[in-house]
Each structure stands twice: as structure tokens, then as C-alpha cells.
């Protein structure tokens, strides 16, 4: 089984960096989809099978927090794991996100290993 991953970030450079890291992890990744903000992400999520979402918080149109709120209300999306990648270091913000049911929080700047470890922790390990 290979995974489909959705990357949501308004920064095109971060989307490219993440896609490159994901392909370097040597994990069984089928495809990496990407969206510039929450609205685009929802469109993709409603039309494609996605195994895990990596999302930024601060984005135009729809923020990462609004995206998670909508996903948690939709029965077909509520169980898709969401990992937040953000520059914010506030413990209150992280606690709020954890209460919303996120699968993980990675602070920028991130190391490639943290992306790989989070996928393994969230989706399970394999040989």
C-alpha cells in the first residue's frame, strides 16, 4: 500500500521543500498533492483519497485552523490525520490544536527526519 499525502501551505517554496522531503523519506508514497490554502485543500479532500494532511496555520482564504474545523464536521474527512506545520511556538496554540484532534505538530524550521517520523507514528511503520 502506498500513501497519498496532501501538503497545504501558501508558500510555494515550502510546498516544494516538503514534496522533496517526502520523496526522500523512502516511505511508500504514491503521490503528493498540494494546496495553497484551506479551501483548495477541502476541494482536493472531497475528491481524492488522502492518507495524511500536512498543513500550515496562517494562509489566505482559509486558515489551517478553519480547515481542521471543517474537516472535523464532515464524516468522510473527520478521521483523516492532520499534522500542523507552523512557525508558532505558543503552547496555548498547540494545546488548542491538540484539543481539535490534530495528529501532530511540527515547528518550522523542521528537519526532514521529523516529517518521516511523524508519518510513521501516525500511519504506522512497515518493512
Amino acid at each position: 500500500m502506498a500513501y497519498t499525502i496532501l501538503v497545504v501551505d501558501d508558500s510555494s517554496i515550502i510546498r516544494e521543500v516538503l514534496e522533496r522531503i517526502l520523496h526522500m523519506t523512502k516511505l511508500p508514497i504514491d503521490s503528493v498533492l498540494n494546496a495553497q490554502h484551506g479551501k483548495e485543500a477541502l476541494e482536493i479532500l472531497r475528491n481524492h483519497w488522502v492518507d495524511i494532511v500536512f498543513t500550515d496555520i496562517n494562509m489566505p482564504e482559509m486558515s489551517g485552523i478553519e480547515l481542521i474545523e471543517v474537516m472535523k464536521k464532515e464524516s468522510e474527512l473527520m478521521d483523516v490525520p492532520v499534522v500542523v506545520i507552523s512557525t508558532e511556538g505558543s503552547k496555548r496554540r498547540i494545546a488548542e490544536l491538540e484539543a481539535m484532534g490534530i495528529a501532530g505538530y511540527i515547528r518550522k524550521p523542521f528537519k526532514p527526519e521529523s516529517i518521516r517520523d511523524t508519518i510513521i507514528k501516525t500511519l504506522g511503520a512497515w518493512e
Partner: protein
Amino acid sequence: MDDELKEIIERVVVETMRSAAYILAERTDEGDDIAPEIQNPIGVSLTFSGTPSGSLTLWAEPRLARIAAANMLGIDEEDSAAVGKQVEALKELLNIIVGSFLTEAYGEHLLFDLGLPQQCAMSRLEEKANHPDTLWIVADESPVAISLQLHDPGGARGMTP
């Protein structure tokens, strides 16, 4: 701006340049000397709201922005993709700098809302270049200017939850 805030900003900028863009940077007290040397700088600004609210603006030369983009993407700095992403690279560096600065300066328990990084006019650097609150960093032999504006400087320094 008090000396402690200046020190935090300088430390955060140097550390972010190193960890996010693999660029060696160091603070300098020679801002007056290097300010006129900055060539066609790209300026990016990010607002934050909370206690305090304000904005941080960073100016860097296109060459440094291109190196940052190339290093972040793992490509050659002459690659056209690096040129195309140079402003994006600066915006992302600023995003990380502001996130780290707010946490270091005001603690992990306060909540800030960050805006979206915006490119700003070069004329704003001309206004700020010699202001005592404008900090200068040398990154890969290229001058970088940073200006912090606080709307309520008393803010929440030292507050605990």
C-alpha cells in the same frame, strides 16, 4: 527598542538563516557603514497581533534571497527556479523569524495571531536605514536590515500565564 529585544532579534535572525537556509550570518555594529552598500534590497514585512502587536520588516539583497531559495530547495543558486522563488524564500524566513522572536521575547504561553508576509516598498528602507532601532546583520557577506515596530512596547514582557 530595548537592548534585550535587539539581542533576541539578532540571535533569532542569525539562527534562522543558519537552520532554515544554511546561510552563515553575524550581527554587526557597523550598520551606518553598510547601510549605503545594500543593493536593490527586497523588503518583506509581517504583522502580528496580540500583546504586543506590531510588525517586523526585513530587507535583503536579491543575491542573498536567491541563495536562500536555492539552499532551501537544494538547487544551484544560478537555477532559474531559485530566482523565481527569491521573494518567497525571504517571506518564509521572515515567517520563521517572527514566530521564533515572539516565543523567545514573550514566552510560550501567550497567543499571537500572525499576518501573511507581504513584500514592501524599497522606500521604507530609505526611511529606516539609519534609524537606531534598525538592526543590521551580515549574511554571506551581504547586508540585511531588520526593523521591529511595536504598537504597545510595554507589552507583556515577563508575563506568566
